[in-house]
Each structure stands twice: as structure tokens, then as C-alpha cells.
């Protein structure tokens, strides 16, 4: 199974995401943001960081990178899974691949801390009920209208919710999926909880859920 970590100017979680994917048994490559041939990958990850310095708005410039055109086609084709983590999630909402938008954290500044998450998408995360993962963001306040929340709830597209809302997100939502369950976005950083020396190893559960999902739901040839 092959994975790619897309690197934009300003991306800063690429290395640990690469290591985490490798530790989860995926053959992994870095992709510079002007690369467009992504069809060989089963999982494409937009990692965390400050793509284009977060100038204008987080993700607002990165969504126009050449790689994003291919990403849109990749999603339509059902070829594999697209996962956006933190800034990657912000890019996906800017690109309209996931619903909602982000505002500045309610407290007005950056927060880096370990949070408890309640897993909601039980089909994706079989047998996992709670996760302990790090958040690290200034603009993690996920905003989505009530009608969409209802839809997300009905279609079980909310991946997880914060046990204690750290940033003001609507309904404490910390991660969502698109309607086909091939695009996932999450604010917490699973890659920071994957190594034996990390405070938690729950990030591995997220990546193994992605692997299972790829096997069951994409056009990947086994």
C-alpha cells in the first residue's frame, strides 16, 4: 500500500507524518506541491503546518497549488483516500472538498495540548471509542451551519468530537468525512502519537483505520 505526503512551502509536519505512515506499514513518498501524478497512491495526506505562511487565511493559497487539481480528480475517481491533518484539513475546506470553514480559536491564540476525542464514525474506526491526540493550531474553530451538522450526523460523517471543546468548534467537531467517505479531515495530529516514545500511541489507530478503509472501499488492486 502506497502513501504520499504532500509538501507545500510552509508545511512543517511533513517529516513526522512521513515517519508515522512508514511506521503504519505504508510505503511512503514526499510529493512537492507542483507534482501532479498522484494516481499511484492509495493514500494522499495533506499534512499540518503553515502552508504559504497561513497568509490571507489558512489554506487559502495552498488550495490553488498545482497538486490540488490532481487531488480533485483523484477524489472523483475513487482511486484512494485523501486525508487532511490540521492545515491539510483547512486546505480541504478551502478547496470545497469538505464542508465548513475555520475561525480563530475562541481564546484568540494558538493552543498546543493533548486532548481527549470521542470517536463518532464507528464504521471507520472499528472498536475505537476514545483517542488521546495533540492539537496544535491557532485557527481550529470549525464552523458549520446547523443544517449541515444534521446532515453530517445523519450520514455519520463526524469522525470525532472533542471531549472538552478547546477552540469553540461547532458541536465540538474535531474531524469530518465527505459524502463518499474518501476525503477525511481532522484537526488533531495523529502523527505526533505514533512512536514508542510519544505520550500516546493513539495516532497509529487512526492510520490503521485508514488502511482498513482503503482495502474495503477504494479501487485499489490488492
Amino acid at each position, binding site marked *: 500500500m502506497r502513501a504520499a505526503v504532500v509538501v507545500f*512551502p*510552509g508545511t*512543517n*509536519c511533513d*517529516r*513526522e507524518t512521513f*515517519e*508515522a505512515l512508514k511506521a503504519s506499514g505504508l510505503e511512503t513518498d514526499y510529493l*512537492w506541491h507542483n507534482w501532479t501524478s498522484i494516481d499511484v497512491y492509495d493514500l494522499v495526506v495533506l499534512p*499540518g*503546518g*503553515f502552508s*504559504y*505562511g*497561513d*497568509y490571507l487565511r489558512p489554506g487559502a493559497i495552498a488550495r490553488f497549488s498545482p497538486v490540488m487539481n490532481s487531488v480533485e480528480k483523484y477524489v472523483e475517481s475513487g482511486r484512494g483516500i485523501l486525508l487532511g491533518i490540521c492545515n491539510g484539513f483547512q486546505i480541504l475546506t478551502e478547496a470545497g472538498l469538505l464542508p465548513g470553514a475555520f475561525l480563530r480559536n475562541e*481564546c484568540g*491564540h*494558538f*493552543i*498546543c*495540548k493533548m486532548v481527549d476525542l470521542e470517536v463518532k464514525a464507528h464504521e471507520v474506526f472499528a472498536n475505537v471509542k476514545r483517542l488521546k491526540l*495533540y492539537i*496544535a493550531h*491557532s485557527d481550529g474553530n470549525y464552523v458549520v451551519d446547523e443544517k449541515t451538522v444534521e446532515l453530517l450526523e445523519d450520514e455519520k460523517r463526524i469522525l470525532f468530537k472533542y471531549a472538552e471543546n478547546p477552540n469553540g468548534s461547532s458541536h465540538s467537531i474535531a474531524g469530518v468525512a465527505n459524502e463518499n467517505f474518501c476525503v477525511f479531515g481532522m484537526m488533531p*495530529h495523529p*502523527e*505526533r502519537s*505514533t*512512536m*514508542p*516514545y*510519544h505520550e500516546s500511541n493513539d495516532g497509529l489507530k487512526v492510520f490503521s483505520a485508514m488502511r482498513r478503509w482503503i482495502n474495503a472501499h477504494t479501487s485499489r488492486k490488492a
Partner: protein
Amino acid sequence: MHIPQEKLEKMSMTRDEYERIVNLLGREPNETELYIFSAMWSEHCGYKHSKKLIKEHFRVSDENAGIVWLSDIGIAFKVESHNHPCAVEPFQGAATGIGGIIRDIIAMGAKPIALLDSLHFEKPHDHIYEGVISGISVYGNSIGVPTVGGEVRFDPAYSKNPLVNVMAVGIVGRENLKTSKAQGVGNSVVLVGSKTGRDGLHGASFASRKIDKTINDRPSVQVGDPFAEKRLIEATMEICKLDCVIAVQDMGAAGILSSTTEMASHGKLGLDLFIDRVPLREEGMKPWEILLSESQERMVFLVKKGHEGEIEKIARKWELDSAKIGETTSSTEFRVFDKKELMASLPLSLVTNPPDLSREIEREYSTTAEVSKWIGPIESELLCLLSNPTIASKKSVYERYDHTVGGRTIKAPKSDAAIIHIADSKGIALSLGGNGKYTALNPREGIKAVLFEACTNVIASGGKPLGITNCMNFGNPEVDEVAAQFYATIKGLEEGVKILGIPITGGNVSFYNESEGEQIPPTPVVGVVGVVKNIYRIPKPDFTRKGNPIYMIGRLKVPHNGASMYSKRKGFFPTVDWKACSRVLNTVMRVISMELAVSVHDVSDGGVAVACAEMAMGSMMGAKISTDIHPFEEYPARFIVEVQKGREGEFEAEINDVEFARIGIVGGDDFIWNGERLSLSSLKKAYESLEEFE
């Protein structure tokens, strides 16, 4: 010589210095040349008051950062101050301080992996505190280097002169280590990074004088762009892998001028600069402005002639400007050309060797051996200390710093030292701290206590100290008292590292921390890098298990320390047996490596009672302490150690070469000190007082 006094003042230059230049040059310098001397002979670039003393007392390299080795992996580290800019514009001052020290690390070819900062403010939550912390947060988080530790201390003495010292740490393979020393004639000086503008003009001379409220210093403060810095880091890492790169230098104070002349002078070569080739962001800049500009996010590389294109290609990928701006020559001259017109021609050695103004003023600073006693309950004093902003939890600060980006963080802010993963089961322990109260009371003994404290932090977290760096924050060195404090600190530091047997790998000096005639207390800050041999076998920072015995290792009956946090009465610095302290450090390292210590915390601000209370609060596990040790007195090299029940005999046999006492037992819901019962929640409430401001 007819140079008017105003002109000299504008250049922050004395008439003596000017006359010296004229004598050595055999003529009067032209305008561009005068600006060159103004910057290069400033205290900030030239270290006039410190260079000679430091060379005499320490063996430090002239590379951009110090380095220690874990087999083939080099750990590059350095501390730098950005005090003056933070006093004027706290947010940009702190942000560019981070940017500057990071470039020192990448100039070694090292990838930055951690930041620590030592901050001294008047009080929490004023505009300087808020500005500095958000500056660190915005810039550090964006460039993806985790801020993993340091300290925040408060004292009214820093009301006009806050101290902002940042330590950066990077890793580099032996084969990729870079030098700042130029080699070979005719090689190309290539500038990479942001365009050059008028920002930060006179930054070096601004940082070399006291802060004067009547002068508008804002234009001397540079503006940071973390996105450019992040690209510059990545580009530099790629460029450093090229075979054609001979030397690397960051651009800090006095920009192009100081970085290129230092490079050439380290290699004993001449240098020609073509100033019109520098990519500019403003029109009409004069040659001296281009030379002295402190525009941020720029690096300079010396490249084999003909290979400039390889650098330019990488710069283009990262959307950075690059240009060949000069070349090395076989002469001893530093020449500056503007469109073929010769603007300056000076002997390089004259530019890079400002006059020595260091002074060896001897002063005696007393100590006392009078043993300190405490009688009566501890509750009110303990709660007062725990809520003192210097001791209180800094959660509201470190949660604003990304301390886990990079995925290498093993233990950060709550630990005595931060622990960062390096390779396999190896890690490094990092500590940075100062104590202006100690060093004000007795600079010579105080600096040793600061040095030992940074080492005890590393040891308590399971590390073995390998190398030391420092940042010397002092007042105006032209004042006798300040010169005496500095000389005493140098001597004390030399004595301290000799006792410890750990090398000093580098340092930084910040003078003129003075405003309206008020000097800051001498505040040397020490950074230590240690190795953690097995990251899976490090002791915990908090109490772990009910029934385990608690020990205090280190001197039991200690003299009164006039600089202790609890102390309200004036006094002297304690008489310290430093050799005994050094033995304590070695003994604790030994019992930790033998895995006889379950949890360890060093005793520092607030003494033994505060250290025990912190261990109890950390895991919300009570403790019962019975001891005649002074609860609040401070003395170097002391540790609280929790030992596994049943292994007391083994443990005591290992530590009998130093003073120790069994002082209590872990367990219960309360913190009990000699029968006095305090609830953990009341301690915690006091300890979390800083957060109530939110």
C-alpha cells in the same frame, strides 16, 4: 580632524575611536567607511568589552554555534539575546530573535529541532509579556521548530529592560557540518533569502547603547516573516548538501557587512563586494544602507566559482531571491563597489578587530555560612511561593507554543529539562535558565549556582551534561560596578565549568541593558545540552506510587541564602562547597542510570517544600514529609528522589558518598509537612494562579 561631534554621536562612536581609525588608516574614512566602522566597532558586533576576557578564560570556537557529539550526530546549540528590540517592540523583537538564532544553527548545516527561551519580565500580562510571548508563538510555531522549554521569571528590576534570550538546538551529521571560514581565492559570495530593505538600520549600534526614551528607536527594530524563514531553513538544508559550498554564514547584526567580512577574516582572505547586485525591496538605498541593513531571513554562502547556478536553482524552488554579491581575493583588503565605483577600501583586519575596552575590575562579594532555620507552620509561605509568578505553573505560556511539532518531543515543558528524541533509544536533555537574584547578590558564586542548576535540570530528567552555552545579560559596561560584575561572572563561570569538567562551547554577550540610569541586575543565563542514553529508562518528574520512600540528596543544613525566593530579609549568598555539589550531581546520575530512582525533581526556586509539592501536584498524589530540613531555603545541587519500596538498602548504599536524608513517604490525599496537613487542591489552586488572568 574636523568631524563634528554630532556626526560621531550619530555613529555611536567615540572621538578616541575615530582618531584610532584615522591613525591606522593614514587618512580620514569616507562616509561609507565611517558607517562600516560604526557597525563593526559597535559593542554588539565587536564585543569590545568582552571578547578579550572571554578568549582568555574559555576556549570557544568562532563558528556560529557550539557543538557536542553523540557518536556521529552533532548537536549544534547557541543562545542569543534580543533584549533591546523587545523593549521597544516586544512582538517583532521576540519573533526576529527566534529567526536570528535559528539562522545561527542552520549556518552550521544543522537542522533546527528545538527552541528554549529564558524570559525576564517585570510582571505577568503587561504589554511586553504579551507581546514577547505571542511573538515567540507566532514565529516559532510557523517555522515548525518546537519550543520545548526555558523559563519565565519576574522581577521589577526588568521593568524597562526585559530580557529575551533564545536557545536553538539543531542536529547535523559529521559529513554535513559546515564552517563559517572562507577558503580559496576567487570564490563566490552568494546571498540567499529575502530582499534587502531599510529595516533594522543601526540595529547593531542600537543594541550597543542604553535605551533612551527620547529617541524613536522603532525603525531600528527588524520585522520578521516566518514563512520566508521556513523556506530559508529548507533551502539552506538543501544547499548545505552541495559539494560546492565552502562556507556558510547567517545574517544578523550589521547584515551583509558583518556576515561577509567575518567569513573572509576567519579564512584570512580579502573580500570584494558588489553592492549593486543585492536584490532590494526599496529604491534609492545608499551603499552603506545596503551593507548595514538588518532585513531578516537572509543567509550567505561561499561557493566554488562557477557553481552559483546550483544555489540559485534551490533558491528558486523555495521562492527566495539569490545573487552573487562578491568574491574572495588574495589581498588583505575589504573593498565595496557600487556599479564599478569603489565606495570603500579598508584593511579587513581593521574592520573586524575593534579596540579592546575590557576591564578587569576586582570586587569582593561576601558569602555567609550561618545556618538557616525555620520554625513554625509552612502553609502561608508555601502557598505564597507556589503562587509567585516565577514559580507558578507556566501552562498558560507553554500551551501557546507548539512544543510537539517535529514529532521528536519526549518530555516538554513540565519536565525539569526537555527531552528530545535523536535516534533509536538515544535522546538529548535541554535546559536553559538564569537567576538574576543570585547573580546580583554575588556574581562570582551566583553564576556557579546558575550553572549547577542548569545541569541539575538535565540530570533530574535522566541526562548527562555534555556541553554548556551562555548568554551574559549586563548593564552598561562603562560603569565600574557593571564591569566588576562581568569580570566576576567570567571568573566564576570558569571555576564552575572546571569543577564540573564540562566544556563551554559558545556564548553571547548583551551589554547596555540600562535605561534612565538604571542597570539590570547582572543576569547570565546558562544553557546545557545533555545526552539521554536510553529514553525508555528515564525517571518520572512526579510521585508515582503510594508507599515509596522519598529522599533528599544534597546538603541538609544549609546557610541562609539572601537570594532565596522566600527570603524577605537581606543577606549574603551562602558559602557553597562546590566540590561536594559536583559529587551530588555524579551520584544522582549514577542512581538514575542504575534505575534506582523512580521519580526525580531538582530543588530550586522555593526550596525543598516547593520541590516536593510540585512532585505531589504533578500526579495529584499526596506525600507525608517529616524532616528538619529548612522547607524554603535554596542551595545548589539538591534533588528529591522517590525510590521503589524495598530497594532502600540498595539505594542508600549507592549514595553514601554524599549527604542525604530519608524525608518521607508517597501516598494519601494530602501534602503533610511535619504533621501540618495541606490539601493538594489548595496547593494546586495557588500554583495555577497565572492562569486566572486569562
